C-alpha cells in the first residue's frame, strides 16, 4: 500500500509539472488582457471571454499567418517526401550508401539553424525571396530542416519491409522498379503517411528560420512571439491555442508509431 501511495504522489507531481503550464496558457487564451495584466494573476479566468479569438480573427495578421503556416507546411511535405523517398529506399537496401547518407543527414539534423539562416536571409534578399508573401523562401528553408526527419522515418520503414518481397516480385516478372512500386510502396503507405505528418509538424512548429526569413509576413510561430513580446497576452495565448490543435492532433496520431520505435534516429 505504501508503494501505491508513493506512486500516486509521484504521478500527481509529474502530471502537475507537465500539465500546469499548458493549462495556464489555455486559461490565458480565454482571459481578457485587463485581467492578465493585473497582479496577482488569476489561476482561473474571472471573466472568461472569446474576445481574444475574435480580435485575432479580425486582425490582419492571424488569418494571413494561419494560411501561410498551412501553405508552407503542405508545400514542405510535398518537396521533402519527393526528395527523400528514393534516397531512403536506396539507403535501406544498400548498406554502404545508407551509412553515408545517415551520417550526412545526422549532420544536417544537428547543424545550428542560425548558422544557415543568416546566410540564407542574405541570399534571399539578393534573390528577392526575403520576406516573401507566399512564403517561398521559408518553404525552401523548411524543406532543408525536414529532410533528416523524413529520411530517417522512411529509411526505417523500408528496412522493415523484407527485400525478399521485392525479389519474389521480380521472380514473378516485375522489373526492379515495378517491384518497388507495386509491393514495397503500398506496404510503406502507413509510414509515408507518418512521415508526411511529421514533416508537417516540423514545419508548423519551426521558429528560427520563420523569424529570420519572414520579418513582416509572419507565419504563426513568429506571430506568437511578436504578440507576446509586445504585450498582448490574450492574443498571444490564443495563437498558442490555435497552434496546439494540429500539433497535438498529429502527435496523437503518431504516438503508436513513436512507441514502436519507428521514428528512432530522428531524435524527435
Amino acid at each position: 500500500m505504501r508503494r501505491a501511495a508513493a506512486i500516486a504522489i509521484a504521478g500527481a507531481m509529474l502530471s502537475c509539472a507537465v500539465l500546469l503550464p499548458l493549462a495556464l496558457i489555455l486559461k490565458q487564451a480565454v482571459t481578457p488582457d485587463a485581467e492578465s495584466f493585473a497582479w496577482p494573476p488569476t489561476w482561473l479566468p474571472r471573466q472568461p471571454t472569446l474576445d481574444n479569438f475574435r480580435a485575432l480573427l479580425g486582425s490582419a495578421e492571424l488569418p494571413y499567418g494561419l494560411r501561410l503556416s498551412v501553405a508552407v507546411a503542405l508545400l514542405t511535405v510535398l518537396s521533402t517526401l519527393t526528395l527523400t523517398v528514393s534516397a531512403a529506399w536506396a539507403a535501406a537496401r544498400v548498406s554502404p550508401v545508407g551509412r553515408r547518407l545517415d551520417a550526412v543527414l545526422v549532420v544536417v539534423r544537428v547543424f545550428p539553424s542560425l548558422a544557415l539562416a543568416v546566410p540564407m536571409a542574405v541570399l534571399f534578399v539578393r534573390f528577392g525571396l526575403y520576406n516573401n508573401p507566399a512564403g517561398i523562401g521559408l518553404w525552401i528553408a523548411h524543406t532543408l530542416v525536414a529532410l533528416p526527419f523524413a529520411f530517417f522515418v522512411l529509411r526505417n520503414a523500408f528496412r522493415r519491409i523484407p527485400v525478399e518481397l521485392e525479389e519474389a516480385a521480380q521472380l514473378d516478372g516485375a522489373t526492379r522498379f515495378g517491384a518497388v512500386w507495386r509491393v514495397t510502396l503500398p506496404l510503406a503507405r502507413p509510414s509515408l503517411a507518418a512521415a508526411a505528418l511529421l514533416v508537417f509538424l516540423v514545419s508548423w512548429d519551426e521558429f528560427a528560420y520563420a523569424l529570420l526569413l519572414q520579418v513582416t509576413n509572419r507565419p504563426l510561430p513568429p506571430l506568437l512571439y511578436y504578440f507576446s513580446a509586445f504585450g498582448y497576452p490574450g492574443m498571444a495565448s490564443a495563437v498558442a491555442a490555435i497552434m496546439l490543435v494540429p500539433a497535438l492532433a498529429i502527435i496523437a496520431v503518431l504516438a503508436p508509431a513513436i512507441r514502436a520505435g519507428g521514428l528512432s534516429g530522428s531524435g524527435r
Partner: protein
Amino acid sequence: MRRRDAWWLAWPLLAALLLLLGYPIVYALRLAFTDPLTGASPQLVNFSQLARDPLFWQALRNNALLPLASVALELVTALALALFLSQRFRGRAGLRAIVILPFALPEIVVLAMMRYIFVPRGYANAALAALGVSPLDWLRPGSALAWATVVLVDAWHVTPVVFLILLAALAGIPEEIGEAAQLDGAGPLARLWRITLPLLKPALVAALLLRGVDALRIFATPLVLTGVEGVPVLSSYAYHQWADYGNDALAAAAATVLALLSVTLSVPLLRLRAEDA
C-alpha cells in the same frame, strides 16, 4: 543492386542538400572571411571584431556551459522517469503519455507559456506570494537565476526525448537478470548501481552525444525568455547582429564559430552511430 545505382537514386536528395546546405555554408564562409569595408578576402577582421566584443565571449561561454547543464539535468531527470515508468502499475500508460507531452508542444508555445510564468508579475511569483515568500526576478538579464531558468525550461521541453531513449533501453534488459540479482541478495539500490546503470551505459552515452550536439543550437529559449542580452548564446548573438545592427559579416562570423563547434562535436556522435550500424 550496385552501389552506383543506389547513389543515382539518392541524387535528388543530395542535389537538394548541396543547394540548400552547401551553398549557404559557402556563402556564410565568404561573408565571414571578407572585410565588409574593403571587400578584401580572406580577412580575419570580422573575427577580431568579435573577439573585442564582451557580449560575444559571454555568448560563447554560455553556449558551452548551457548545454552541459541542460543535458546533465535532462539525463538525470529522464533516467529517474524511465526507471519509475518501467515498473508495472495501473495508469502507467497515461503517465507515459503525459511525460512525453512537453516535447509534443511547439517550442514557441512552450516558451511563451514559460515566459508568462517567470516574468516578474507572472504565475511563479504569484505562487511564491501565496506561500508568503518574496518574489524572485527569474529572468533578470545576466543573473545566475535567469541562467538557471533557461536551463530548466530547456530541460522541461527536451527531457521526453532522452526519456524515450532510456525507456527503450531499459525494456531491453531481460527481467530475469534483475530477478537473479534479487536472489543473489542485491537490494534495489545495489541492483540499480551494479546491474541497471552499467547495462544502460550505451544508451546513456548515445543520448548524451545526441542531446549534447543538439543543445549547441539553442536559440529561441534564451531569446524569448530573457532577450538577446539576457542570456546570450551564439545563435541569438548572430541574430542580434543581423537583425538589430544589419551587420551581415559579423553575424556570419559568429555563425561560423557556432557551426565549427557543432561539427567538431558531431564527430564522436557519428562515430558512435557508425559502430552501432
